[in-house]
């Protein structure tokens, strides 16, 4: 009697869950991208297919400049982030010195606050009417260069993205068997040379991964570039796609899609290159080597370590402090005065409308779906081999790479008519939240499942519990720490989401990050600071709750 593998798969409920996942990702991640791709190939004056749009794009100085600007800023931000993050990671994994917990908290806050808030803080300090700018001009008679433009965008991006480098490289360093370093020093290397010749080369895959992440985040970051690039003045691809989309009815239809396709192509290309590179040079196995604890530093070494890290971390955290403080300052025109007031909050609440409520509602709804679907898909991806599971793994991860603005533009063009007509509704925002942030949960869940002995589930089946009952009673409780961690990140990322929702919102579906961004871009600086402070406060409160519940370690492990 021959067995039919298809028939066996059809008896397994997980097959249908896997198929449902693929269908969901296909409709809400792949189709919008394909639609943009199709639009970019649409001829300008005829109904034909062609590369006209791309000729326009690469033929025009303006578009080429945006492309160059994007690459320029992303590269500079990546280099800066590495320069800050790698030394910090080495210090934190190898040495114990006073103030570590405080510094850690500051780094985490930097990572989890929306980047455009950091950008806005730099404007408050170094903008045209910025506190430092005015002080230098009026009191010292010095004309400081302003923060606007490529340097400002790079610095602001680096300060909000360096924590990614820090955490990824720390993780890589912790997995390196310390005996390699001991061998190097026993062979006569000085500590600095040990780091240079052994530690860093072994941590290289982690460094490269984190560099890629920073590069992609900067490339995709719409808010920072728009605030510090002042929109059209210093266009990058992300802001260009957005403004082209807003003016779509005008002269050049298809150029928003074309710009989006260029952006996505760069991102996907880099990810694929990275894959190839890491496949060719497989990394040393990360068997849990026995690691000696970090060395305790004292005296001047401890002081200089703590001092140096504190300076860097404080500089990066400064924006958050500045935003919070200035939200309580009297704002007159475009300048903050040195008088404390609650007026900004009064005005902010008067104008807030549904924004706060919308944010809470959409983020909660999205989070629910993310947790349920993400855990199930993560489980399926990590427990089942086969083409179905690999396909799900691939399509579910696509939104990780696609800039939010691009996804938003794709949604707006695909879901504005039958069969799925949700443009302008709350649904489209909730769904874009789900699609963009579910990868956090899928990743978190699958890495936890990977560590759970498969025998537990087999024992459950063997004892007579049907597959889904076993999943609920055995796997869900064991996956809970991982799910909780993924949930924390997903919640913060969803609550602070800007770059896709800015394309998709309407007056009725405005969210808090959108309100904050609008006020920061061209509105009342006091109200902007108040909204931004609310976002930071909610982020901090969430983190505090998670740390109290004891899930902080795992949460950081995911990001």
């Amino acid at each position, binding site marked *: 009697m021959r067995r039919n593998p298809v028939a066996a798969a059809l008896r397994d409920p997980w097959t249908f869950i896997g198929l449902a996942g693929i269908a969901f990702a296909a409709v809400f991640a792949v189709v919008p991208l394909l639609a943009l791709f199709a639009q970019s190939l649409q001829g300008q004056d005829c109904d034909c297919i062609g590369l006209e749009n791309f000729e326009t794009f690469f033929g025009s100085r303006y578009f080429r400049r945006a492309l160059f600007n994007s690459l320029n800023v992303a590269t500079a931000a990546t280099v800066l982030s590495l320069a800050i993050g790698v030394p910090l990671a080495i210090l934190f994994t190898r040495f114990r010195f006073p103030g570590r917990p405080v510094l850690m908290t500051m780094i985490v806050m930097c990572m989890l606050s929306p980047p455009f808030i950091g950008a806005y803080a730099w404007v408050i300090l170094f903008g045209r009417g910025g506190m430092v700018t005015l002080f230098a001009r009026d009191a010292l008679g010095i004309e400081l260069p302003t923060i606007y433009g490529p340097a400002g965008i790079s610095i602001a991006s680096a300060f909000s993205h360096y924590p990614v480098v820090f955490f990824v490289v720390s993780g890589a360093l912790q997995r390196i068997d310390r005996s390699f370093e001991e061998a190097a020093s026993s062979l006569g290397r000085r500590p600095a040379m040990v780091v240079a010749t052994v530690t860093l080369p072994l941590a290289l895959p982690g460094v490269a991964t984190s560099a890629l992440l920073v590069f992609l985040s900067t490339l995709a970051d719409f808010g920072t570039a728009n605030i510090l690039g002042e929109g059209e003045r210093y266009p990058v691809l992300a802001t260009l796609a957005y403004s082209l989309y807003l003016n779509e009815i005008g002269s050049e239809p298809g150029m928003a899609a074309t710009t989006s396709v260029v952006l996505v192509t760069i991102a996907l290309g880099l990810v694929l290159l990275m894959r190839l590179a890491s496949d060719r040079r497989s990394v040393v196995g990360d068997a849990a080597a026995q690691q000696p604890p970090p060395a305790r530093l004292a005296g001047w070494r401890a002081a200089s370590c703590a001092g140096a890290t504190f300076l860097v971390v404080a500089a990066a955290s400064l924006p958050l402090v500045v935003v919070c403080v200035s939200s309580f300052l009297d704002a007159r025109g475009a300048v903050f005065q040195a008088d404390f007031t609650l007026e900004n909050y009064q005005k902010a609440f008067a104008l807030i409308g549904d924004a706060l409520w919308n944010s809470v509602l959409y983020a909660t709804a999205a989070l629910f779906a993310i947790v349920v679907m993400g855990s199930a898909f993560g489980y399926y991806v990590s427990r089942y081999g086969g083409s179905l599971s690999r396909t799900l793994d691939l399509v579910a991860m696509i939104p990780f790479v696609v800039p939010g603005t691009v996804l938003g533009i794709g949604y707006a063009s695909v879901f504005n008519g039958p069969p799925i007509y949700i443009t302008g509704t709350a649904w489209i925002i909730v769904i874009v939240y789900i699609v963009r942030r579910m990868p956090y949960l899928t990743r978190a869940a699958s890495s936890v499942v990977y560590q759970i002995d498969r*025998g537990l589930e*087999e*024992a459950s089946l*063997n*004892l*007579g519990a049907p597959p889904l009952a076993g999943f609920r009673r055995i796997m869900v409780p064991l996956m809970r720490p991982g799910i909780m961690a993924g949930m924390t990140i997903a919640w913060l990322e969803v609550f602070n989401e800007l770059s896709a929702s800015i394309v998709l919102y309407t007056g009725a579906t405005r969210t808090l990050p959108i309100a904050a961004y609008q006020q920061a871009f061209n509105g009342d600086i006091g109200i902007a600071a108040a909204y931004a402070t609310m976002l930071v406060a909610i982020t901090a409160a969430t983190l505090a709750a998670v740390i109290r519940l004891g899930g902080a370690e795992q949460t950081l492990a995911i990001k």
Partner: protein
Amino acid sequence: MTPHVAISGVVKRFGPLTVLGGVSLELPKGEFLTLLGPSGCGKTTLLRIVAGFLQQDDGSVTVGGRVIDGEPPHRRDFGMVFQHYAVFPHMTVFDNVAYGLRARGTQSADIARKVAAALGRVRLGELGGRFPPQLSGGQKQRVGLARAIVIEPELLLMDEPLSNLDAKLRIEMRQEIRLLQRELGITTLYVTHDQEEALAVSDRIAVLDRGRLLQVDEPRRVYEQPSHLFVADFIGGANKIAARAEGGAAVLSGGATLPLPVTAAAGSGLVATLRAEDIRLESPSPDAVRLRARVVLASYLGARLRLACALADGTPVEADTDVGASLPGPGGEVDLWFAPAKARVFDAGDGRRVG
């Protein structure tokens, strides 16, 4: 009488690799049968096919007259004990053991009674409230055992249940498992790579090599009458001496002739096997065969002395001798004797027994 478990012609391939090449096996009710073989022989694959965790490519499994091939594992009603215990870490010992009963909708009063009885049987009576991380490896495996027997399964499957325990505990546990199995009369399919364990616990042993079943027999027959060179070598270990078929007998490479009938064509290559404990330093019987050898090393093993020697052509031969025996030093010549009835002769090509 129809067998309780009938495995017939089971084939399993992983890509181009055939892991099971048509295995057939029958277990009468209440039998303790061990699948024995080196790692990669397919024994665990076969067990997992019976459990329903893998689907065979061909062939069929019948248990209690019921063909179970299409059935998902949770409807098969077989208890299974896992190599890595698979004791649910987030449940107490009690809840672990109760898990299968709850899945069957057993009344809670019955659950309490049955779990208590099962825990008593594996001598964990007082530990019902503990969580698995607080248990030793041996205790965890007792929980695994209790959990498997409490559902009174039609068939008990054990996948190397003792291989994660230390040597002393292994021996203790295997006796307990054997006694429990006899007491409950559960038909049991047991997988191990440890030949001593297999000899100690089984009613019958099925020796597997590279997906083929070589011999299914009682422990004593498997040890004394191996049907295949691989079986002779894998179980108990044996000295292998090259030989040739001449005039219906085997002529050893050193020139000695085994006065044994051999069913092989004249001139064909043979291998004679001889267990270390069957070799003597003095002739045990008038028809004994003598091997001239040179001592390489003598290892003291407590109860006996293991003598590693080499024949003239370099063939290594190991012999067990009394600790008190007087021996030449390393390099010295020694005469090794054995009764021809103790030797087994196999075809050098396909490993078949020929004498």
